[in-house]
């Protein structure tokens, strides 16, 4: 067996993951790049005599150092030397994609171009001369329709073919003036031995790339002076910053290639255009957004409720079977706590979180979520974030754990911190279940609605405060608006599964462990002591019954458990007999706001470190109790 390593590289949203999934199927490993919170997806494919390792690099627009993703990608390609780089290109947006292709070519590694979305090209009335494109770029160009699996096998064959040959990468000419300076620099870089090709180094130095500058400076500080002189010369000629000069030259080449290879005809894609217009409309767009979010919630929670009741029934029958075999003694009772935790986790995942993430994935893949990000941009700006932060916020309504991890899409550390913070204030599926079964069932739906509205207002106010506490210039929104498309089912399911997996790996162990601890406390009657200790908060400040203390404490372990504890400690599942409507509202409000759960705290620690995670936790507990007490006093007026 021979081994080949292929790296998939390309802009965001070009179908790279679809190709990756198609090639590797279930043989995937998703981890992080060493020391970074950037996802690293690897997979293997066995084809004829070859074991092919495939690496899906992050979706990026450039190989500069704008983001960690860009840095990781170029370091990977240069240092770990994959046998072939497959550059996945969105054929409907050739110019911007070619800008990245040109940079990949600068790295001088064997390369194939996968011209994806060829079906949309046709629909848009465009025609691309792939032969000509191949000739200009000097690397194989293969048409692909990834969502239909078309052309992907050809890619593999070509990759194997190329891996056995020497591929000479053509030099793309960036114009007389720039080329002159590149040539000069390449000469002075003669003795510099880095993993990157000389031409790449020269171009990056001219651009003013800090990382490369650092590397070269260490080896020969004199070169930096030559670089400055060259770059200054270019800046003087063009009247722009050195980075802009090089980027302009690259785009000029990309533009010429497009003019040479693409002919534009009549667009047959009117429906998608119309849909885009309506869903981003200044008034209509917002109405559609609100309606679709409300119906999303309605569908998920009515379906979820129905399905979870069935699951709970099964869980209960499991308990009687268990007791038949193992009895109800202390040890077996304790052990049941573990099983109960697992069952509880499943009754949350299957009926609520999975469908929620599935539908959200459909919306994401079709392109609707980016329209929502578009509509929400100005609102999010008020809390120092931009529209894209709305996506992890939406994930938070399912489970806060994947939502926190989803905040990685934020560009700066400060933005990530604010995003993570407001995400933890979003009521997850478990909290919604509590609110629906207390307030929804016994007080009325208008109160549920009001609670969610209050929550949004609090998110806004606290987000604004966080923005003031961590000042800084917010990154403005710069987002591609792709045409709407029919979601690719396999990719959506996979995406939902990855998000659920974060819940299973991070949240489920905590749920199971805490179920066990709760059983221990129950058996040892420690809960009574705890409830007594909490009386000043529960009874005096919040006006809740004493037994709610246990429910609130264990809600930290598992939110939906507080409902079960409320029932067992109160002695009935008819909550109207043990709680007044005001108490239900106060209890729901506190549950909604105080720190989501242990699993989310773990996710916080992972993303922003111990100190900040603890600070957020303590703050939110205090804040929730404070708001709960105020609400209690207002409601009994």
């Amino acid at each position, binding site marked *: 067996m021979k081994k080949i390593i292929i790296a998939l590289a390309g802009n965001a949203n070009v179908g790279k993951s679809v190709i990756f999934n198609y090639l590797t199927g279930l043989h995937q490993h998703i981890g992080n790049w060493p020391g970074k919170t950037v996802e690293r997806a690897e997979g293997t494919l066995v084809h004829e005599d070859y074991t092919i390792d495939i690496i899906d690099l992050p979706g990026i627009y450039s190989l500069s150092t704008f983001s960690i993703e860009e840095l990781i990608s170029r370091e990977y390609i240069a240092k770990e030397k994959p046998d072939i780089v497959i550059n996945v290109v969105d054929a409907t947006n050739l110019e911007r994609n070619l800008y990245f292709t040109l940079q990949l070519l600068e790295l001088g590694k064997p390369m194939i171009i996968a011209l994806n979305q060829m079906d949309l090209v046709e629909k848009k009335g465009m025609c691309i001369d792939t032969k000509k494109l191949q000739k200009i770029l000097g690397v194989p160009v293969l048409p692909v329709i990834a969502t239909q699996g078309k052309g992907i096998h050809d890619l593999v064959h070509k990759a194997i073919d190329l891996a056995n040959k020497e591929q000479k990468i053509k030099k793309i000419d960036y114009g007389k003036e720039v080329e002159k300076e590149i040539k000069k620099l390449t000469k002075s870089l003669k003795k510099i031995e880095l993993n990157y090709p000389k031409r790449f180094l020269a171009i990056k130095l001219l651009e003013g790339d800090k990382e490369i500058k650092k590397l070269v400076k260490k080896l020969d500080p004199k070169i930096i002076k030559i670089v400055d002189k060259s770059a200054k010369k270019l800046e003087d000629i063009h009247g722009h910053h050195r980075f*802009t000069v090089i*980027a302009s030259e690259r785009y000029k080449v990309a533009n010429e290639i497009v003019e040479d290879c693409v002919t534009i005809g009549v667009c047959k894609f009117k429906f998608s255009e119309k849909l885009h217009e309506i869903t981003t409309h200044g008034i209509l767009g917002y109405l559609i957004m609100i309606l679709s979010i409300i119906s999303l919630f309605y569908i998920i929670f009515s379906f979820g409720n129905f399905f979870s009741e069935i699951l709970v029934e099964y869980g209960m029958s499991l308990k009687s079977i268990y007791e038949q075999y193992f009895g109800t003694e202390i040890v077996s009772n304790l052990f049941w706590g573990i099983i109960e935790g697992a069952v509880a986790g499943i009754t949350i995942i299957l009926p609520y979180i999975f469908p929620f993430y599935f539908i959200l994935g459909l919306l994401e893949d079709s392109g609707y979520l980016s329209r929502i990000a578009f509509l929400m941009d*100005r609102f999010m700006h008020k809390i120092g974030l931009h529209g894209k932060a709305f996506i992890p916020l939406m994930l938070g309504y399912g489970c806060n754990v994947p939502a926190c991890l989803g905040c990685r899409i934020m560009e700066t550390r400060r933005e990530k911190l604010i995003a993570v913070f407001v995400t933890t204030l979003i009521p997850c599926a478990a909290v919604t279940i509590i609110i629906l079964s207390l307030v929804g069932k016994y007080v009325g739906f208008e109160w549920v609605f009001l609670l969610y509205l209050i929550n949004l207002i609090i998110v806004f106010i606290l987000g604004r405060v966080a923005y003031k506490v961590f000042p800084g210039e917010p990154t403005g929104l*710069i987002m591609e*608006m792709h045409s709407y498309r029919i979601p690719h089912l396999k990719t959506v399911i996979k995406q939902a599964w990855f998000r659920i997996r974060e819940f299973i790996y991070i949240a489920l162990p905590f749920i199971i462990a805490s179920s066990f601890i709760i059983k221990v406390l129950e058996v040892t009657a420690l809960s009574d002591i705890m409830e007594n200790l909490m009386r000043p908060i529960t009874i005096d400040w919040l006006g809740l019954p004493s037994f709610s203390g246990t429910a609130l404490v264990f809600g930290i372990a598992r939110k939906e458990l507080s409902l079960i504890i409320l029932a067992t400690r109160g002695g009935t599942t008819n909550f109207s007999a043990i709680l007044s409507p005001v108490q239900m509202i106060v209890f729901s409000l506190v549950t909604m706001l105080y720190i989501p759960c242990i699993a989310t705290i773990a996710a916080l620690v992972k993303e922003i470190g111990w100190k900040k995670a603890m600070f957020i936790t303590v703050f939110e507990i205090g804040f929730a109790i404070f708001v709960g007490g105020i609400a209690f006093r207002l409601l009994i007026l």
Partner: protein
Amino acid sequence: MPEKPIKLIDLKQGQKGIIVSIVGGRRVTQRLTDMGLTPGTEVKMIRKGPLCPVEISVRGSNLALGHFVAKKILVKVKE
């Protein structure tokens, strides 16, 4: 007579402009340049509203830009 450049955000819906320069921090400039908003490039204002960001068409595809960003791009109006 060469007209004075205006901010991209001040382009009317449907109006076209040629990018003159980007006046902003290095990060924003770099990002916009990478997205194809280089000097001399033609942009068209597709959509703007009081609540939403602006949507422009550049190099054959559409980009959404926050107000904050759209204020940093100077363009010459193309008649």
